[in-house]
């Protein structure tokens, strides 16, 4: 078999892979690693705040940990984990053999990865960024050392990766759907990925612009944000939040998508109000761009802007509410199985509703003057991002684990993880609403005794340890499963509705031996209900055209990684400029190679496919 002949070492295989399933695993591992790092940083924060006047982590160092916690969790944990789910599932859900641009898919991953590694190098090279994940211009320009430079350059590199990934999924979903898979037959997770990708396309460029301005100011003597020289710091806030608010939806729409799949599967019912769900997703995506200034109510934009953004923000509650009720009514009349993914999905509803309603409270501009930059806001966005996104990622990981790795995660351990995480989450963040209302500002490294903050902070810290314990159990589960997990069937949960459950777990390199014909929403469910074993093929069995793997995505990203170091040390080290240029040459050279070398890919022959399929069936 030629697939065996092409097999090289495992590491080389993953460094060069362009297969969306392997890239999904890369995203999962890298995102999971950064999730652990960000989680550790969160624990440090909570330990410092456990009691008043604590001296575990003070002043500047605390600010570094706080900045890195936010930045890591958003850009290097949540985003890649979302991409892991998208990569693992979306191409199969639409009946495709891969994404539209497999090479770019790998490039997107490696750019993200090197961006994250670059940012975290700051810990060992003089200190991490310390101006918050929002990195507001006046403070970040004042910040000494290279911390902010790491932030600015690292996020630019990984931002390219995300943008590439977003475009790739847009094209994939528009162009690569199997015959019969009309837009209104796409699974909800695919829809969410589609809208999310569009959001990425429009949201990341403003961030890039903001970052480039800041890079110019910090490294090349620019004045974009220096008021004394005619610059303006508020521009950064606008650019950041024009990206930053849609970013929330970039994370939470896929989460909604994951839950939509899980609710339908484990209620054994089709998604209630599918078309209104699609409509709501698109509407949320659209409104997501209209509300960024609600992060800036206290900046002094004046009552007209504040009022407009307040009302626009409230409007988002309507499509979100539609979704909540649709999920509830998906379960209504269903046959609900409480598997681990379903437990997360069920717990998500009350948790996310809490985060949603405090969002509406924050939208009331006049009252937000009190909430803004207080622990109330900290509680709010953790309810949205943990109660929504992290729950979804944990749910999705348990749900699609058998599909990705061919083994079922242990359900008992999964449920222990769930309960620890769920209890810990509410313990940590519920009380923070009240801390904020009682006058505790966010991003403080300590507080004085006698202000009424002691009990609340202690409870919050205890909760954080529950979540840490949950994470440890999850890791144990992963290890135990990989050693002696139960092998998963194609339809691993027995109730799969979408195309990914029709192919083997893990799927073969080419996903589908024959491109399937899609005859309606929940294509696999339809076939099963008609008593068929497999999908209806849309083409005769033939040779399958596959893309070649390539080391170039890795090298292109590595070049930028090297260049970033060079330009950062340009003014203080003699080698700086040279290294910067070498790095860029590596990148541009690899891009040149990619352009001139014809890569026609290869074919998996019909006979090999037949043989492989027989192996699966047997």
């Amino acid at each position, binding site marked *: 078999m030629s697939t065996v002949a092409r097999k090289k070492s495992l590491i080389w295989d993953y460094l060069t892979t362009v297969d969306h399933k392997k890239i999904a695993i890369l995203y999962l591992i890298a995102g999971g690693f950064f999730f652990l790092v960000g989680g550790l940083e969160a624990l440090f924060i909570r330990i410092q705040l456990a009691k008043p006047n604590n001296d575990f982590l003070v002043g500047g160092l605390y600010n570094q940990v706080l900045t890195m916690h936010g930045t890591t969790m958003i850009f290097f944990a949540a985003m890649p984990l979302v991409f892991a789910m998208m990569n693992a599932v979306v191409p199969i859900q639409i009946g495709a053999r891969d994404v539209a641009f497999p090479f770019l898919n790998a490039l997107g991953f490696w750019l993200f990865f090197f961006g994250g590694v670059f940012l975290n190098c700051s810990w060992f090279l003089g200190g991490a960024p310390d*101006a918050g994940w929002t990195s507001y211009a006046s*403070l970040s320009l004042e910040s000494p050392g290279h911390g902010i430079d790491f932030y600015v350059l690292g996020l630019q590199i990984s931002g390219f990766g995300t943008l590439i990934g977003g475009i790739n999924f847009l094209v994939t979903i528009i162009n690569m759907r199997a015959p019969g898979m009309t837009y209104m037959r796409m699974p909800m997770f695919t829809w969410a990925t589609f809208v999310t990708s569009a959001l990425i396309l429009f949201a990341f460029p403003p961030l890039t612009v903001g970052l480039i301005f800041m890079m110019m100011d910090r490294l090349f003597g620019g004045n974009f944000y220096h008021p004394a020289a005619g610059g303006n710091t508020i521009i950064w806030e606008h650019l950041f939040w024009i990206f930053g608010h849609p970013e929330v939806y970039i994370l939470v729409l896929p989460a909604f998508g994951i839950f939509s799949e899980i609710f339908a599967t484990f209620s054994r019912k089709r998604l209630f109000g599918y078309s*209104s769900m699609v409509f709501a997703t698109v509407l949320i995506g659209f409104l997501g761009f209209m509300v960024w200034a609600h992060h800036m109510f*206290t900046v002094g934009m004046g*009552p007209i802007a504040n009022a407009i953004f307040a009302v626009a923000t409230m409007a988002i509650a309507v499509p979100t509410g539609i979704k909540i009720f649709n999920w509830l009514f998906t379960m209504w009349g269903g046959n609900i199985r409480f598997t681990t993914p379903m437990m997360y999905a069920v717990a998500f509803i009350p948790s996310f509703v809490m985060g949603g309603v405090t969002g509406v*409270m924050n939208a009331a501009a006049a009252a937000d003057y009190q909430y803004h930059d207080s622990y109330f806001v900290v509680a709010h966005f953790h309810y949205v991002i943990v109660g929504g996104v992290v729950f979804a990622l944990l749910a999705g990981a348990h749900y699609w684990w058998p599909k990705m790795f061919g083994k079922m995660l242990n359900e008992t351990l999964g449920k222990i993880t769930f309960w620890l995480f769920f209890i810990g989450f509410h313990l940590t963040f519920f009380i923070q609403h009240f801390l904020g209302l009682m006058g505790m*500002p966010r991003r403080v490294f300590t507080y004085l005794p006698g202000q009424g903050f002691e009990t609340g902070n202690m409870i919050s810290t205890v909760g954080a340890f529950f979540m840490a314990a949950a994470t440890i159990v999850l890791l144990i589960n992963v290890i135990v499963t990989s050693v002696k997990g139960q092998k998963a069937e194609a339809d691993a949960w027995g109730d799969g509705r979408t195309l990914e459950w029709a192919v083997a777990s893990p799927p073969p390199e080419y996903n589908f031996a024959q491109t399937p014909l899609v005859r309606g929403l929940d294509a696999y469910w339809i076939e099963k209900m008609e008593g068929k074993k497999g999908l209806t093929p849309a083409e005769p069995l033939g040779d399958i055209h596959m893309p070649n793997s390539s080391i170039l995505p890795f090298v292109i990203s590595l070049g930028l990684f090297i260049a970033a170091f060079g330009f950062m040390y340009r003014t203080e080290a003699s080698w700086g400029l040279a290294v910067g240029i070498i790095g860029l040459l590596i990148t541009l050279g690899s891009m040149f190679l990619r352009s001139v070398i014809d890569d026609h890919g290869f074919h998996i022959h019909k006979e090999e496919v037949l043989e492989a399929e027989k192996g699966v069936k047997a």
Partner: protein
Amino acid sequence: MKKWLLNWRLFSLFSVMALLLAGCGKPFLSTLQPAGEVADMQYSLMLLSTAIMVLVIIVVTIIFVYVVVRFRQRKGEEKKIPKQVEGSHTLEIVWTVIPIILLIILAVPTVSATFKLSDVKPMNKEKRDKHTVVVNVRANLYWWEFEYPDYGIITSQELVVPTNERVYFNLKASDVKHSFWIPAVGGKMDTNTDNKNQFWLEFDQKATDKAGGIFYGKCAELCGPSHALMDFKVKPLPRADFDQWVEKMKNAKPVVTDSVAKEGEAIFNKSCIGCHAVSPVDKRPEQARTAPNLANFGDRTRIAGILDHNEENLKKWLKDPNSVKPGNKMAGTYGNLTDDQINALTKYLMSLKVE
């Protein structure tokens, strides 16, 4: 009839919530114990929004619990395939329209309050009413300056204002962005490096008494290593007392009698006066005012905004400012002082009183 019932329910929900929340926090700090017109307005908006939101949560929870209990898989149902329902237009319209109505109920008072809170016309009149109190707030890396332009006086760290009337503020920052927040009295506003912001607050006399005469103020925007320590205090006074205070400030001069304090004064005039003024009437431009005005230092309630006000803490602060407030701008600007010098300086600073 039904509407009345709903109102009644909302009202009782309101009062229960108000009771619950009022137990939260300290009267000198908590937004839940509003101490003035602005905080009141914001508190009512909080209550209204919380009431609506609790209503939403209750509805969702009831359906949620019912669904999860009623439709869980039971023994013998493992094979059962439920009816595949597409959706329901009626239901979908219901849960689209009702939230819209709820949001309108919230949006109207929100917009109205937003405009009321931004009404700063009286401070910007060409000829300002002479009773209108205006304070220029300047936020600096970890300290606050309060200038009263109409009286020509400046103070730092402790804001003094008249009660039961609107006080107007000009807000700006001199280095990085900060945010001016007195939680019990009203929501915050940023002090930008680019422009001047304006807003007003009102300090209620009764609430001031309840809070013990002093409110806590906070910096609410991450501004550097000592962001958490950038506190200030607010002393609201009845109008007559406030006017008296202003007169005293206008005429205040350091009076040093003690011999140790005199020594301290000499050290101060050599090492500190370049940045710190000791008279409330400081005619230097704001760029030259790079440190807090100390004219009424002896009257203050905190050292460096956070430590208890006593000689021991003052010595600690003078000896090693970074151990108290990391990243402050004072450390390293006045050389090493001997313990005797620090003692003398402490005596002198503590003698700077206006009251």
